[in-house]
């Protein structure tokens, strides 16, 4: 199963790779990274019918925002699940994300335990 993490902070990649080290090692999970919304869309578009099943995206990014990316993905690849990760856990962002079709909303600092549960659910459902 492949997931895509979108965040403008490069160290997020290392963090996720370390956090899901076991899952990645056992090839149960494949994680790819994009550092902007534009890059994420490009990556999804290039693979034709993308094998990515879940996108986790930051909201506040330079250029395309996470919410814009959410609507773009939902219109082009409605089957891909998208959740938002944001430092701003305010009601406004939350409401907009959920109404645009986000599956979940995580606030920073990311509670990796709940994220792991979310991903484990996906893995067992497969």
């Amino acid at each position: 199963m492949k997931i895509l993490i979108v965040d403008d902070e490069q160290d997020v990649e290392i963090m996720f790779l370390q956090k899901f080290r076991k899952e990645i090692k056992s090839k149960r999970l494949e994680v790819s990274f994009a550092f902007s919304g534009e890059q994420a869309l490009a990556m999804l578009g290039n693979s034709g019918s993308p094998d990515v099943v879940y996108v986790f995206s930051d909201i506040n990014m330079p250029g395309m925002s996470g919410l814009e990316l959410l609507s773009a993905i939902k219109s082009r690849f409605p089957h891909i699940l998208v959740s938002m990760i944001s430092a701003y856990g305010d009601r406004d962002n939350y409401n907009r994300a959920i109404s645009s079709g986000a599956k979940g909303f995580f606030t920073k600092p990311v509670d990796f335990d709940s994220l792991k549960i979310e991903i484990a659910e996906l893995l067992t459902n497969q």
Partner: protein
Amino acid sequence: MILINLISLSLLYYLKKSSGAREFPEHLHRYFKYGMIAAGVLIALGIVHAPPEILFELLSFVLVGAVVYLMLNTPELSYLKTLAITPLPIIGVRLLEYVIKTLSPAIFDIVENYLDAAGVFAFIWAVTMWLNHRKQMKEIEIERIITKEQERQLRTTEEQKNQLETLVAERTKEILSQKEELQYALDHLRSTQEQLIQQEKLASLGQLTAGIAHEIKNPLNFVNNFSELSVDFLQEISEEMPKIPDSPEKENILDLLENVKSNLGKIRHHGSRADSIVRSMLMHSRGGSGTMDPTDLNALIREYSNLAFHGMRANPNPINVDIQLSLDETLPKVKLNAEDFSRVILNLLKNAFDAMRDKLATAGSDYKARVEVRTQDLGDKVLVEVEDNGPGVPDHIKDKLLMPFFTTKKGTEGTGLGLSITHDIVNSHEGTLEISTEEGKFTRFTILLPKR
């Protein structure tokens, strides 16, 4: 003889009459009275020709002479000089007649014609002098009227002057009181301006604080997450270690790993401390988010003062404190962001507990820590008060209490954000927060919220 006395009588009568217009001394009045009586008696004697006629005639001359003398030699009567000399020629002719007739009637027969002629002249003189006197009197009268008029005008001017002075005094008083009012308004404005500047400073400090928090939050998340990850890895490493055969190097590695583990624990601990500060700082930017709902303020206070008390009891250094709730049960529901406002109650109570803990450490054993929470319906506003009998706040730090990061607590005990956030939250409710305190006695936080 009758003529002479008539002259005396009319002179005296004239004098008496004119005494109405002028004030004469008392003795003059007596003279006039007795003189008129004497004249009257002499006239009567003259009519009946009572003997000895010669003596009475002499007396008549003495009387008229005395009257003329009085008029000429009394300062008060000096204005009547013309009148006094009017009858003089007549009196002279009569006196001459009387002397000649008495001494030698023979000579009188010879000079009678001359004397008659002199009498006529004397009469003409008298009439002239009389007219002259009338004219003088008129002039004096006119002068008197003019003086009187001038005096009247002077009096009027004086009165007007007085009136003006009173008016000026009144106006001055009014202006002075207006000045005082203005001064008061000015002072009031100044203090309001100072308060506004203070509020503005606090608000910008709050914004700055929130801005800083946002900037720090992301890197701090990495610090915390990576240290957490490293702790996990160390756990895995220590699970793998028994599989490696023992050796002095392994001993050393295990020792070092133990140190790294403890270091990571410290990083994690201080990282989460920084994280809780950052989260408090972010509270500054929370104004506007969250919803304002009609809330039972009394219930909120009951719940959160209970929570604050038990929270304090569960933490290190608990104290015994008497919490009194004086809640106005008629209080209507108030539009509040309940989540934010509960923080206000928690912060103020925590603040009171900390202050009273300090006092408990220094004050004698009969000091009983006591905090009172009050609510009151003030019509268009709602009052919430938290008052403790702690050590109070010294004047020099009172103004700093609401600033972010200002704390009197030692070391890592306080972030200096509690009251600053409290102030922000009250502000976001369009309320006011005031502090009154007396050192050694009490500290009272007064919150006024609009009802809306």
